[in-house]
């Protein structure tokens, strides 16, 4: 709560003496604050205007030591908060909500609670911290929006207030908090809503040792030099079917080490892996797959197909499929081909009036078509354009 509405007074010797909480007497949070101050800290407080003042060097020092120093614009969530257990993190968010949070457009419809919880602050970094904290306990905050307000002061002077708002939808989140549900580990897809140009700035490519992952801004990321991706299907129930579609495009300096795993653990399961990889401009693609069939998984049917296309001299393509079969009563097949774009194919298309680049990207599109046709239309269109973009200037 201090984070939101609190501030500190320092004496000349830079010893903190006094703490203020700017909570108006009418605010619902005032009572809670008074109660907390009495029961937790057992300190005396005195109302002063709209705020409460506490004359206590000890309390001030405690707050300083906890890392809550700073003014309205420089306060931040101290690092130790991020290491707290989940329920304490939630309590922290709740406390902050008492100070800077409010409800917006709340309504009940069909027994479901709609609306948003909004956190407002002049300190954007603080909200960024809060957003990370919220993500870490499984709440999905929305993005932070910024508004600039002008307020007229006396003598015709204008003052600009910049405030930032971090909002989150209530639906779903509340249930997750109330039921103390753990962060669900399923991966979700979120559609990109809009892309805003923010100008040019330096971009860093952070790498960690070997194949370790690291967390940046709340998102688990891995080294970008080698992209590794092995989605796996564990076919554990009778009759289950798993399909893995994999598409890799490696451009200059990239190594896409991708593939998939199918584990057949139950009878009558079936599966398919289709992998298509394209190497261009010195990129390297590797297919690495594992198909495993345990004893007793009778009647398993599996088909693996991995094709690679190499577009120029500098590129490379590898295939490392592995099959481990402990059950005789199965059928399993694997097929792969590696090729370059045929001169005749190119010549034919070019004789029909296409440029070399157009012809190449047409052939590449044809090559990956079996995967693209499984995608929703909008993604497919996006993907085709992406490939076209990557092809530009790649030939000749």
């Amino acid at each position, binding site marked *: 709560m201090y984070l939101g509405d609190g501030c500190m007074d320092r004496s000349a010797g830079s010893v903190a003496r006094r703490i203020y909480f700017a909570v108006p007497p009418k605010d619902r949070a005032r009572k809670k604050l008074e109660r907390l101050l009495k029961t937790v800290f057992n300190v005396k407080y005195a109302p002063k205007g709209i705020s409460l003042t506490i004359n206590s060097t000890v309390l001030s020092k405690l707050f300083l030591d906890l890392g809550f120093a700073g003014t309205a614009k420089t306060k931040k969530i101290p690092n130790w908060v991020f290491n707290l257990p989940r329920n304490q993190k939630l309590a922290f968010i709740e406390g902050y909500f008492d100070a800077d949070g409010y409800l917006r457009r709340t309504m009940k419809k069909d027994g479901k609670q709609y609306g948003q919880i909004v956190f407002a602050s002049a300190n954007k970094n603080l909200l960024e911290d809060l957003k990370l904290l919220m993500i870490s306990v499984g709440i999905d905050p929305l993005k932070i929006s910024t508004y600039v307000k002008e307020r007229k002061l006396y003598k015709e002077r204008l003052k600009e207030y910049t405030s930032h708002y971090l909002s989150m939808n209530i639906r779903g989140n509340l249930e997750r908090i109330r039921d103390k549900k753990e962060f669900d580990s399923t991966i979700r897809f979120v559609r990109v809503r809009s892309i805003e140009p923010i100008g040019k700035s330096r971009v860093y490519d952070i790498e960690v040792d070997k194949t370790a992952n690291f967390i940046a801004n709340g998102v688990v990321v891995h080294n970008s030099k080698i992209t590794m991706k092995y989605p796996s299907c564990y076919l554990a129930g009778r009759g289950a079917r798993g399909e893995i579609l994999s598409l890799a495009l490696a451009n200059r300096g990239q190594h896409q080490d991708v593939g998939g795993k199918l584990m057949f653990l139950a009878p009558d399961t079936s599966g398919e892996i289709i992998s298509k990889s394209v190497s261009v401009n010195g990129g390297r693609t590797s297919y690495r797959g594992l198909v495993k069939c345990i004893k007793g998984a009778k009647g398993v049917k599996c088909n693996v197909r991995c094709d690679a296309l190499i577009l120029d001299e500098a590129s490379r*393509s590898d295939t490392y499929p592995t099959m481990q*079969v402990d059950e005789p009563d199965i059928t399993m097949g694997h097929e792969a081909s*590696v090729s370059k774009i045929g001169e005749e194919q190119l010549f034919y298309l070019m004789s029909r009036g296409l440029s070399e680049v157009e012809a190449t990207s047409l052939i590449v599109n044809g090559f990956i078509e079996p995967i693209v046709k499984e995608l929703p239309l909008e993604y497919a269109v996006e993907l085709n354009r992406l490939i076209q973009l990557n092809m530009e200037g790649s030939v000749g």
Partner: protein
Amino acid sequence: MQSSKLKLEIQRDQKKVIPFEISESKRLDVVLAGENAEVEIVGLVLGKLDEEKSFEAYITHVAPNTKSNVNVRGVLRGKSKFDFRGNVRIEKGAKGADAYLRSDVLLFDDAKMGDDTPALEILEPDVKAGHAATIGRVDEQMLFYLMSRGLSRKQAEELLIEGFVNPIKERLKRGAK
């Protein structure tokens, strides 16, 4: 378990056929070092009881217009186990290389296919390379057809296995021709 290793370098315009029956664990290293060099590897694995066999083939194409063909077939019965690791590497500059890696295995009883990895590493775009692997039983439909012609299940199975193994056996008989 016995194991044997064989290293070969095939020179310009040479053609070599390496037929063998895999009776233990075997490793084969072939380098296609000269232009137009060709290698054909034909292997047959018959596993029974609790035999464990393995075959590793490492083929490296260095020179242009080289050709390699690996064809391994196996019939595994009892509690036998077979590992196949194939690796075809086509170095940069081996233009026009043609590589094919194939393994087909029929499993019966409690047999296992331990590790079936036909890998390709290709550093040169101007090539033709492929690999294929199948593991499983004899085809149910073929069995059904033969049985509908009056054969017993066992007879039909024997016939299909014979058909599966014979081409390789023939090749082995003709030897390194």
